[in-house]
């Protein structure tokens, strides 16, 4: 490749169009960076779950696999990087490999080095530090991005928690978060001693905990990329949170919507400004590249509070990277790759940010992550495959055609479904069934699931089937007190 400086979006796009070095996204599925292979030559996905049944040309899954017993995405990635088929695949394709991940740890870095690959993210150690919710508050404070009224403290007992909150003046209707964790697993709503007991094993002995006053708010997400030329900010998205049709986790993330009018212009503008400031502070802290912020928007006042920072790509990245601006200019993640490519570039980030702030740059989409929400366990015998689905007049949802492009969805009567749960898998409360992407909104103005979304969820779920696990029966007590007397 030429050593010249890339001077505009057109040259950046061409640069990736002709990219020689193999770039790999290694993760459980390719969902987060869906479609990026079409912007970057030599971009491949290495995945644990084949959502496409072998039909996606750029997805590679090792064929010989144990049944899932992983505790985290990091575990999956570390497993993949040691798999012979994966190693052979990377070696066979040659070049100097570049790896991107959703999650990784120091072991992943070590394994990547063994394979002669560069990890195109800041170091795991720095990311872990930034990911810590308590550190996020501190960075936000430095950047002038305020967090919900909170106190950071260790919790020893319920009495101790009450005392801490009284001192901090944040009342007793609380949201607690431990330093790490996501999607509702480590967010606890605590109002009473009984609430506390349910979660005490996750709170006591976990070190400093973020204790917040519970506010009546809407969740929102915004993604950005910190580059040497400044922070580039994506659109403000709504968050789907805790809907019972989608997730058993109270407060758990279950999707997003992107639409230009989801929030008033003032709120959108404010969120963009705060995200920019936060990104500039991240650069000062040594972090660069892609990140996501959650903002909590007070329903009454419209005030914006910093919820959390994810120093990585996220479940919403697919939304950001398929927005209209991404097609008009380039997906946000392309700037992340650019930042790590060591290629020289010049970019007027404020011009870009202004353009992306234009409502015309957004068309309306939503995604829903559908989990098994029933309180039972069985083995999946049937689940809908990846592709385009149609909703019939009578509300039934039927498979129409295979596709791996979400833009292939033509109307609001069609949807793209990405399969995660496969026949043979355990189906338990909280297991991911798949992700449904539709055009248009899935929530009402009051941020409740709309009728159309409910129909889609129901339509997908009714095509999932399972068989019960074998149930044991020990006979009732054969009362026989005359046991062998010694």
């Amino acid at each position, binding site marked *: 490749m030429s050593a010249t400086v890339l001077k505009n979006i057109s040259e950046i796009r061409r640069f990736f169009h002709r990219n020689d070095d193999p770039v790999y996204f290694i993760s459980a599925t390719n969902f987060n960076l869906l479609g990026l292979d079409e912007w970057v030559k030599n971009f491949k996905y290495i995945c644990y779950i084949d959502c496409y049944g072998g039909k996606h040309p750029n997805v590679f899954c090792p064929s010989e696999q*144990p*049944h899932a*017993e*992983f*505790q985290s995405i990091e575990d999956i990635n570390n497993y993949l990087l040691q798999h012979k088929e994966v190693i052979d695949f990377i070696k066979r394709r040659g070049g100097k490999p570049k790896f991107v991940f959703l999650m990784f740890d120091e072991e992943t870095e070590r394994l990547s080095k063994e394979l002669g690959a560069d990890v195109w993210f800041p170091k795991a150690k720095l990311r872990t530090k930034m990911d810590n919710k308590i550190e996020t508050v501190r960075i936000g404070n430095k950047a002038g991005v305020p967090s919900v009224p909170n106190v950071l403290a260790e919790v020893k007992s319920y009495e101790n928690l009450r005392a801490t909150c009284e001192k901090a003046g944040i009342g007793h209707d609380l949201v607690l978060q431990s330093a790490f964790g996501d999607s509702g697993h480590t967010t606890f709503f605590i109002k009473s001693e*009984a609430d506390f*007991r*349910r*979660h*005490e*094993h*996750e709170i*006591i*002995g*976990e070190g400093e905990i973020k204790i917040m006053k519970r506010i009546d708010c809407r969740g929102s997400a915004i993604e950005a990329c910190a580059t040497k030329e400044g922070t580039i900010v994506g659109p403000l998205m709504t968050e789907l949170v805790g809907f019972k049709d989608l997730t*058993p*986790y*109270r407060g758990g993330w279950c999707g997003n919507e992107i639409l230009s009018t989801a929030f008033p212009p003032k709120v959108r503008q404010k969120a963009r400004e705060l995200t920019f400031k936060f990104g500039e502070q991240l650069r000062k802290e040594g972090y660069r590249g892609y990140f996501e912020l959650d903002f909590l928007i007070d329903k009454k006042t419209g005030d914006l509070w910093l919820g959390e920072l994810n120093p990585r790509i996220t479940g919403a990245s697919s939304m950001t990277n398929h927005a209209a601006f991404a097609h008009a200019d380039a997906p946000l993640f392309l700037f992340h790759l650019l930042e790590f490519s060591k290629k020289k570039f010049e970019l007027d980030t404020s011009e870009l940010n202004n353009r992306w702030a234009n409502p015309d740059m957004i068309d309306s989409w939503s995604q829903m992550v559908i989990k098994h929400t029933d*309180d039972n*366990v069985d083995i999946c015998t049937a689940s809908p495959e990846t592709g385009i689905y149609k909703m019939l007049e009578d509300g039934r949802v039927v498979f129409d055609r295979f596709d791996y492009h979400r833009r292939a969805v033509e109307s609001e009567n069609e949807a793209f479904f990405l399969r995660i749960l496969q026949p043979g898998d*355990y189906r*338990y*409360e*909280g297991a991911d069934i798949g992700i449904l992407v539709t055009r248009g909104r899935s929530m009402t103005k009051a941020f409740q699931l709309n009728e159309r979304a409910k129909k889609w969820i129901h339509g997908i779920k009714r095509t999932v089937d399972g068989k019960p*696990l*074998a*149930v*044991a*029966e*020990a*006979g*009732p*007590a*054969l*009362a*026989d*007190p*005359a*046991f*062998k007397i*010694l």
Partner: protein
Amino acid sequence: MLWRAISEEQPGPKWAGLFNEYWPDYHRWWLKEGDKARPTYAQSRRALTTHMPEIVPLYDELCELAGGGDHAARFLSFDTPPAYLAGCSQAIWTGKEPVMVRNYDYKANAFDSLVLHTGWQGRRVMGTSDGLWGLVDGVNDAGLAISLTFGGRRVVGTGFGVPLILRYVMQTCETAEEAGKVLARVPTHMSYNVTVLDRKRNYLTAMMAPDRPAIITHAAVATNHQENVEWVSHARFTATVERERFLLQRLTLHRDPEEKFIGAFLKPPLYSTAFNAGFGTLYTAVYRPRKREMELRWPGTVWPLSLNEFVEGGRHVRVPGAA
């Protein structure tokens, strides 16, 4: 399986009878790597004196009742016995009353199926017996309950077989805090997760191992791994991660009444009938330390036992798939 519940205030003829009955099998097992693979009597007694001095007089008394032989005494010391594994799940109910529920997953033919109620050394203890005076779960008159699960690690080292460590805790401790100190201190020869729950609803789980210091956690759930899965095939085989995830979800997502919570242990995925593969659920035990009560349960059956009003008895239990 013939299950028996036996009470004897002080070591005596009943215990001696039990010893005679179980000893031939235990002797064969204990000798399976040869006599030289096991510590000597002198070493074993010294180990007991160093780590569990309070129960040495009781040990001496039991050795006497067992006939005073060298092998029997070495076996009864639980000092670095042959390796053994088990499955198991255990959890503390999140309601107000202190309640601990556990499944014991093991081979049916290598299990004592015996509840022992004793008043040894002036302390009343009842629990599920292993190796004649060891325990795999139990409760004492101070209102402290205890239970173990295998820690899912292959490492075998020098230390005590864990059932004796549980017995020692029952004989000498009154609170979860005291038990935590003992569990952190006494060496174990394999990895185990030991959960204790006291009458004030304080609890802790000690992740014990022969090759590293015990980790004392506030975990309310323990299955067959410690902080990370290390022995992948065992983990997969016993579905330890699934069971843990399932239990954690039960604890945090549901407001299960006590009965419903206990019921979850008697159904898959916690309840296992994989006996042909080596391990199945032999029983579910429920401990209520404040009331000094325990129950043994099988699907459709509840056998209540009380520390203060203990009634001896027996039952034939037919667990499908178990020989």
